Structure formats: C-alpha cells, structure tokens
C-alpha cells in the first residue's frame, strides 16, 4: 500500500524486546524514519508477535491466532506494518503467508478472533525496517543525510536468521549472498567486513536460550570471536531479539565463562542514527550493556 500510494505511514509493530528492553531501538527507528517523512503509528493493543520459534515450537494453533490478531490490528488501521525484530518479522509474515494460502486455516483462525470481534483479512503487508530504509527510502537519500561518516569503522554485519530465511517466504533473494545490511553499512562510509560466522545464528532463537542458556551463549561467543578476529569494531544487525542475546548476553557470558567481552552491538537504525548525527543518548546506546567506542561516536 504505502509504497504505491506514496503514503508515508506505517503501523509500527513493537513486539516485546524493542519497547520493554531496548527502547533505544524504538527511539532511533522512529527518529530516522521521521527524518525521511515516514510516520510510525502505534498499534494500540498489540501483543507479543508471538515468538515464532518459541510459540511455533509449542503450539502452532495458539501461535497463529495471536499473530493473526496483531495483523488484524494493523488492518483495522489500514496500514502496512513495520518491525524492528526478526522474530516479529518472521512470525507476522509467516502467519500472513500461511493464512493467505489456506482458506480453512483462515476460517478456523477467524472463528477465534471473532470471539472478540476481530478478523484477519489479509490486507496488510509486513515490512522490516531495514527494507524500508533500503528500498523505500533508498541508499541515495540515506547518503545525503550522513553527516558523521563512519569512515574507518570495520563493521561485522549480523543478519539474524528470520530476516532472510526461509527465503521462499521472505523474498530477499539468496540467504547465502545477502546484501541489504551490507549496503546500509557501506552507505555510512564504514567497511563491511566478511567474517567466518557471519551467517551464523546468535543462538537465542527457537527457545534455545531458554532451554540451555550457557550453551546458547557459547554459540554467540563463537560468532563474536570470529568477528573480533577479523578486526571488526562493532556488530550491526536488524533484530531486537538478537540484540538482547548479543548485548545482554555478553554480560551473562562474562559471568558464566569468566571473560570480559565488551563488543559493541548496534541495531541498524542505531548505527545509521549515529552516522546521521544523532547522539549516543538519542539512540539509547548509553543505556545498554556493551559500550560504544570513541571511533563510533566522534
């Protein structure tokens, strides 16, 4: 809708971690989009997406109507959705995809939503904020607003899993050769550095973090080490849930393994925010676990 008609308004689906743990992501995203004339509207009454790997793992028949309810809220607002978490992206997009392709499932789901007067119609589109940045705003316009170029900064890009995969639903091309995040990093003047475990999972998803946190932190440690080994200064990603694992997780890891990692983790809009002249505080980067080096703030 928004793209064709040029309406610059999205329903911002917050999910859980963005508003309740990392409000900096929410603030930075709203600010940047606004900078390009895009309004983000609150979705009153939205809930947990719900986490696809978790609720999808326990009971798909609960996962689906909860997701459908969230979609229905955006439909009532007559807006497309924008998200800042791969979990939300995965959950809502998959639910939308399944419901659109399966009338019986849709009927069954709407029977539940009908109990409180809601209905999934299939009229909204689920967008990821980094796709809005890359495709709707576009690299050229982004470039114009870069006031504090990140020249000399080596960035390890982390995609998280559910942004790219499964590609048959996501539609961002091959999950082995992605480009969107790389483009966004490069547009700031920073260097996108290839590293061994670039496409590896952060370790948190699918209830894995909950099932065995130490084991799940070990995945993350491997990922961080492989970025650090290539001389990266920070990690930039598009997922609030990964942010929780990668940022908070470092403190947990240091405690569990007796290490002292402090590798800067930034959500894509926080990184772009800095490059566009927002302060560390405005991006909420001062109120998270990992701290930002001078190199990123100068």
């Amino acid at each position: 809708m928004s793209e064709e008609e040029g309406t610059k308004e999205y329903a911002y689906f917050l999910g859980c971690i963005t508003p309740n743990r990392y409000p900096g992501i929410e603030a930075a995203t709203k600010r940047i989009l606004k900078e390009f004339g895009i309004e983000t509207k609150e979705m009153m009454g939205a809930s947990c997406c719900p986490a696809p790997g978790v609720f999808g793992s326990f009971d798909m028949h609960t996962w689906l109507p909860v997701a459908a309810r969230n979609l229905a809220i955006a439909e009532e607002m007559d807006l497309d959705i924008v998200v800042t978490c791969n979990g939300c992206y995965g959950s809502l997009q998959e639910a939308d995809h399944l419901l659109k392709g399966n009338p019986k499932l849709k009927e069954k789901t709407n029977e539940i939503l009908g109990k409180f007067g809601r209905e999934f119609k299939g009229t909204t589109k689920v967008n990821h904020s980094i796709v809005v940045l890359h495709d709707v705003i576009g690299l050229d316009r982004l470039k114009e607003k870069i006031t504090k170029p990140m020249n000399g900064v080596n960035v390890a890009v982390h995609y998280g899993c559910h942004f790219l995969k499964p590609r048959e639903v996501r539609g961002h091309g091959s999950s082995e050769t992605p480009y969107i995040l790389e483009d966004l990093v490069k547009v700031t003047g920073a260097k996108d550095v290839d590293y061994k475990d670039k496409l590896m999972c952060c370790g948190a998803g699918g209830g894995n973090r909950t099932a065995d946190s130490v084991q799940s932190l070990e995945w993350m440690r491997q990922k961080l080490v492989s970025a650090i080994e290539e001389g990266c200064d920070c990690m930039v990603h598009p997922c609030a849930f990964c942010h929780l694992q990668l940022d908070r997780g470092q403190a947990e890891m240091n405690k569990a393994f007796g290490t002292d990692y402090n590798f800067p983790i930034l959500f894509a809009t926080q990184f772009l925010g800095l490059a566009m002249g927002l302060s560390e505080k405005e991006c909420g980067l001062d109120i998270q676990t990992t701290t930002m080096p001078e190199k990123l703030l100068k």
Partner: protein
Amino acid sequence: MAEEEEYDYTKIPPTGSVEGIAAGAPEDSPRIGVYVCHCGINIKMVVDVEDVTRYAASLPNVVVARHYIFMCSDPGQDLIRKDLAEGRVNRVIVASCSPRMHEPTFRKTCSDSGLNPFYYEMANIREHCSWPHGDFHKEATEKAKELVRSAVARSALLEPLEEKLVDVKPEALVIGGGVTGMYAALDIANGGYKVHLVEKKPSIGGHVAQLSRTFPTLERVASLLTPRMIEVGAHPNIDLMTCSEVEEIGGYIGNFDVKVKRKPRYIDMEKCKDCTPCIEACPVKDIPDEFNEGLSTRSAIYIPFPFAVPPAYTIDAEHCLLLKEGKCGDATLETIKEGKAVPPCMAACPGVIDFEQKDEIEEFTAGTIIVATGYDLVDPGVSAEYKYGVYPNVITSMEFERLLSPGGPTGGKIELNGKEPKDIMFISCVGSRNKQVGNEYCSRVCCMYLAKQAYLAKEQLPDADVKVAFQDVRAFGKGFEEFYGDVKTEGVFYMRGLPGEIYKKPGSDRVVVRGENTFIGEPYEQEADLVVLGMGLAPNKDVKSIISMLKLSTSVDGFLMEAHPKLRPVDTATDGIFIAGCCASPKDITDSIAQGKATASGSLLYLVQGMAKIEPAISQIDEEICIGCARCVDVCPYGALELDEVRHVMTVNEAVCKGCGGCNSICPSGAATMKHYRDRQVYAQIEALTEITDVGMLAELESAATAAVAAEASAGAADTGSEAGEGEGAETEAVPGAE
C-alpha cells in the same frame, strides 16, 4: 451381477470371447473385431475386462469381441491374425495401452494379414483409464466401455490409406563435434556416406578434450582422443565445419535443407603452419583461456589447445583490437588494404592472416540429422554456501581436470598460486540431485570422475590428505566399483555426508569445510587448501535455436527428449532426427560413444535404403471446395502448403506436411481435411462419447473436434510421463503421426 459382488480380478479367466451383434453382416460392410487386453493385471485389476467385452459385442458393426491377458504377445496377435485370415473381421480395435506404445505393433499385425493398417483403431484403457482411476473400479469400467464405444463409432468410418515413400539424400548432418558427434560422424563416413559435421568452436573434441585421464582405466584422454580427432579432420567423407553454427533447417526426412553460418577465423587455414610468432606478437594477452577454464590467459590470436583439429589458429573477434576497436598499433583495415601499416600479428606471419574474411553461409541437403550438442557445467554459484568465486581455494572439477592435464596451465602439476596443496577435499553432487538449485537428476559421471581425480591427486601428492565428501557413490559401469575400491585402498578417504558450508580460516589462506560424517554422526571442521566441487552436468544453454528449428522437445530436467525413454533412446518424435550423448542426459564417454554410434546406425538405415516412409495421415485439400484464400498457409508451421497460382487452389507437399491439423481448423470453406482424422470420423467419435443425437449441437462441437485431433496425437506426451517442451517444441507433440 458383477456390480453386486466385490470385484475380484483374480476370478477373470485369461481369455474369452463373445459373438457380436453384427456377426451376420455382409462381407463388404464394416465387420469390427474388438480385442480387450488385460495387460497382465495392469488393466484387469481395475477394469472388468469381461464386462467390457460383453459390452463391445453389443455395439453396432461388431462381429466379435474377445479379451486376452496380453494382446501384444504372439498368441494375443494370433487372435487377430486368425480372425482376419478367416475373413471374419475387416476392422480391428484393440482396447489396451497408448497408441504410442503399441499402435505400430498392431498396425503391423493387420498389414501382415493383408488388412490396410489404417483400418486399425486403438482404445487406450490403460494410461487413460485403469492407471489414473485405480481406486474407482466401477467408474473405470464404465469409462472403458465409453472409450470402446467411441473407437467402434470411428472404426466404421475409417478409410484405407497408402504409405508413401520419399527419396533420401545420402548425406547426414551432425551438430556438435564432441566425442559423441565425432563417433557418429566417423561411423557414417566409414559406411561410405557423406557427413557434414558442424561445430561451433574452433576445434572439435568437446569437453573430453579438456580432460586429463579417464575413469576407470586412467588412460590419458589426449592419447585416446587425438587419433580419432585427426581421423575426423582428415576423413574424405567428412565435411568439417568449425566456428560454425546451423542457421536454418527446413524440409523433412530424407531432404532436410540446411543453412550453416561459418564464422571467419581471419586465418588462411591452408597456410597456417601452427607455429607461435603471431601469438607472441599480439599485444592482447589477458583473455581468460576458456579451454583452461580461465586458469590461464591467451592472446587474441590463438589456438584453443595444441592438439586442436583443425590444427589452425583463430582470431577472436571479440577481443582483437583491430576487429573490435578498429585499430591495432598503427594499423587499421584501411592501412592494411593500402599496404601501409599492418598489425603485429600480420607482421610476424605475413600472408596468412586475412582480415577481409566474412561470414559465409553454406547450404546443403541432408537425409538425416544427429544432434550431439553436449552439456554445460552447472554454474557453481548455485551452491553459494561453498563460496566458489569468493575463495580462490574453491575450484570446479573441470578446473581441476585442467590442473591435472599435462597440457594445462600448470603442466599437470596440482598447484594453486604456485603452491602445492596439502589437504584436498572433494565434494560430490554439487548442483545435482538438488531440488533447491532446480536440478533433481543425478549427473551420473561425477561420482566416478571425483574418484579418478582423488586418485590422481593422491598419486601425484602421496603425502597430501585427500578426502571425498559424498552422499552416495554411484559406481554403475563396468569396472567402476572395482576402481572405487582401488581409489580407497590408495589412501583416499571417503567421508559420508554433504558438507554444509565453507569458510576462510581467519588469518590464513586456507579454508575450512564444515560437515557431518554421517556414519559416525559427528560434525567436523576440516581444513583444506584446495576444495574441488563435483559439479553436475546441465543442459546446454546454446541449443535453444536448434530445439526450435528442429521442433524438438525437452524433458522436465531440460535435456532433449527421446521418442521413448526405454525403447527409443536415441530417436526423436520426428523421423530422421536423432539425439545422442550428453545433450539427452548426462553420461560418460563410453555411453556417449555408444549413443553416437547408435544414431549413426539409425541414420544409415535410411541412407542405405535411400528411401523413407512418410506419414499418410496428413492434410488433403478438396480442390472443388478450396477458394484459394491461402489462410491456411499462415498457420502451417511446416510450410507444407503452397497456392497453385494457375488453378488458384491450395496444394499440399505430402512429405512436408506432418498432419498437425492447423489448416483443417482454419479453413473457412472446409476444403482442408485430415486423412485418418476426417471431420465425420472425429465427430462420430465425440458423438459416441457424449451420446449427443441433436445434430444442431454437433455443429457447435466443430472446434472441439479439432482439439480432439490434437489431443489424440499428443497422448504421447502423457503416456511417456514426460513433458512437451515449451513453445515450438511443444508443437511437435501435437503432430499426429509425427513418428
């Protein structure tokens, strides 16, 4: 009766007959015999063949109805022969399988007994009934009856047709000069007939010329192939056209009109002494050498490889400065003409290089055509997790062949950037057996060439660690399994499991392969300085134009489609056109040669006889009715129609017409009809199927009738379980009797 009880096919006896209601009909009226086949249990299991037989006997003009366990068997055919010999029947219907399968069989049964084969009709109650409706015994039996009823209605209206013969020009065209095309050409040439061999590259030899040694015997490919290549190049009966491509093909079996475009080499082949001064003189030196898979570079004037046939140089027009940019050094085409400045190559080799050469079109007529255009390597980018093109340590199997070849970029030494690898890993099935990349098929040769390559690696570098990561080892050929055993005892370690991904080892130029050894169920990370991807074989992308010119079909996998996957592996749906080698499916040299030779023998059948039968079920113009509007000319895909300007009526070239029915459906006056598919024959069939007696409604069915003609002919596609190709190729399928 039977409907009441549960149908039990085991109770049906192997044979039985019922006298038909027309048993007493006069000799000169249609006297139809219906023969219902059980096809073992293929039909009987679903369709109550006894019931169908009884029903058939009750239909008009039916004299006798019989059922039998295998109608195509000798005793089955005897039932027909006997009825014919006794003068009992003069029309034959077999209700069995697809006409694709056995129409030729039963037509021959009829003609051997003196009945015109076009009095034979077929009801397909297997592919169109028992197979798809396996769960519906009752309905299937009803449908079988309807199909028989329809065949009976048509049978009564059939006419005898005469098969015509055409002369065959005693020359063959072979497209593609790989090992397959070479062997096909040699057999025909040695059989005493002329062969036009068209190869698009500057030399014949195809992919085999690039190989090092061959499995399982480890013979040097150059020494096996060179003598054959020279023989082809020198054979008096072979007209070898390299740097050439087929531009146009028209005509029909025995008389294909061919136009070939010969691209200039800008070299006088007679005078070229196959030396090197011109190469040294040429200033362009950085063109990736395609023969070496880009592992080395060449100049704009070059010979693809030392044992090329013909042994002559070529100037690559896409890279030659003079041809591309108009100027090389001080020389331009003008200065050469004026005898002033010449380019360095001409200076180095006076009198041999000729920039005035132009494209030449050569035209000839060929009796038969053999397509042997080979394969392309699958694009290694399809499995991006293996990082081909990202890490230089990851190479394709064809690149590795070049590293192994004495004539290759390293003189046969396995090295990468001048360094000998210590750990080499081979990965099987890259781009094959993989739905995600769109190639479901097994490429058949890679298991064995990987075994060969791993063996050769171990032989040359005994201290290297050589591993093959595989999912299955398909050692299907003679001596292959034994060879596979030898490779392993030589010290090559076979590790089961397809690797998941490859990454570069941080701070090193080595890579790490991540996988699972599925036998022990443990993941591993294996360091390697060389990874060889066992690339699959894909359909040749360059044959699109040949597919459309020859109206060939492709199978789902994209390879060219044979007339029947089991019974007619090198024939196509069009008489006189054959396919062989890797253009039809991946195969090794042995099988490619076998097919090449098979197509030679198929061609020689026609060339030796000098004659070929042509399909009589073709278009016929009623000159009384034809108004000469020529609308049919536009729809005929074969150019079989020509207007007789004097009499102002349309004429049909009987050898060219394939009986597709296009003219029949477009003709506004109803002058164009199809023999064997006359309107009344088709309408009767439809009428019997739909039981429509209202004549007014029949008229509305006119267009449906044409569709039925097409459907009948295209039954073949469904029957062989294959798919007609897109566009032009698909049309072939709609040609009745194109076989």
